């Protein structure tokens, strides 16, 4: 049994307006930063999974990300390459 540390990034789907991202973007010029755009704000989740193999651990994280961490109606997610931590 090994232990894997995953990171999951959840973002609003590209077509959807992201009011948080826009608010951050609109604040940038007032703070003196020019030429910055495309700001999107998402969610970053870290979790540790005990499993026999990395594939098994990843399958479990996929399911968690699909069913709980993201809502497929409005969001998409990506799972970053895990780190073996024990």
């Amino acid at each position, binding site marked *: 049994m090994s232990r894997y540390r995953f990171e999951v990034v959840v973002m*609003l789907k590209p077509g*959807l*307006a992201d*009011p*948080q991202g826009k*608010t951050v973007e609109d604040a940038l010029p007032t703070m003196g930063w020019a030429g910055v755009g495309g700001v999107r704000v998402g*969610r970053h989740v870290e979790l540790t999974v005990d499993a026999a193999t990395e594939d098994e651990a990843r399958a479990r994280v996929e399911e968690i990300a699909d069913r*709980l*961490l993201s*809502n497929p*109606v*409005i969001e998409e997610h990506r799972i970053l390459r895990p780190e073996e931590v024990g």
Partner: protein
Amino acid sequence: MTSPRVGVVTFPGSLDDRDALRAVRLMGARAVPLWHRDTDLDGVDAVILPGGFSYGDYLRAGAIARFAPVMRAVWDHADRGAPVLGICNGFQILCEAGLLPGALVRNRRVSFVCRWVNVRVESSATLFTSELSPGTVLDVPVKHGEGQYVGDRDTLRALGEEGRVVFRYCSARGELGEAWNPNGSADHIAGVCSERGNVVGLMPHPEHAVDPDVGPAGGRALFESLLASLLARV
């Protein structure tokens, strides 16, 4: 004849469960408090998921609550065609649970809105609007940070074609326009229903608008419709 029993589920972080129970009692039904850990609905005729911030609205509004033990019973209840009403956070939970289409995301202008709005009844073919004529304008309050209704193009088209938009934000005279849309909802949608019309979700709070002594009573008609629907089934 015994009066119908209407359950109101309390989740950790629910805020409007007491007002919902009171609204049910004011309308002459028996109010039954239910708990998120319950595995059955105590035989109620209808169930209300109230407003609030269930489980702190962590992750997304309603995302954790949809996995509460009571939700399996709510699902079965809805599956039998029995009435389910989701108000505000309850609407968000029903969308997360897949009992209603679409999703509620952060308000277009980001800030929390807390004010009275008008909504126009678009459909009387639900158990909660059966006593209302389409076009009727109701005075009800909203208070939410994540009330912008969104859905993909096919979902929105289907809702429109199937008459499943139940309420739209509007002016006091029933006109539609961005000026009266408090959160940027697609097609000014304030509430939708399931295919069979037994599950309804809306962002405004009818349970806060039932007592003419303290303000507009635009919410009464929803509870009156529910009571009439339940009595008609007996």
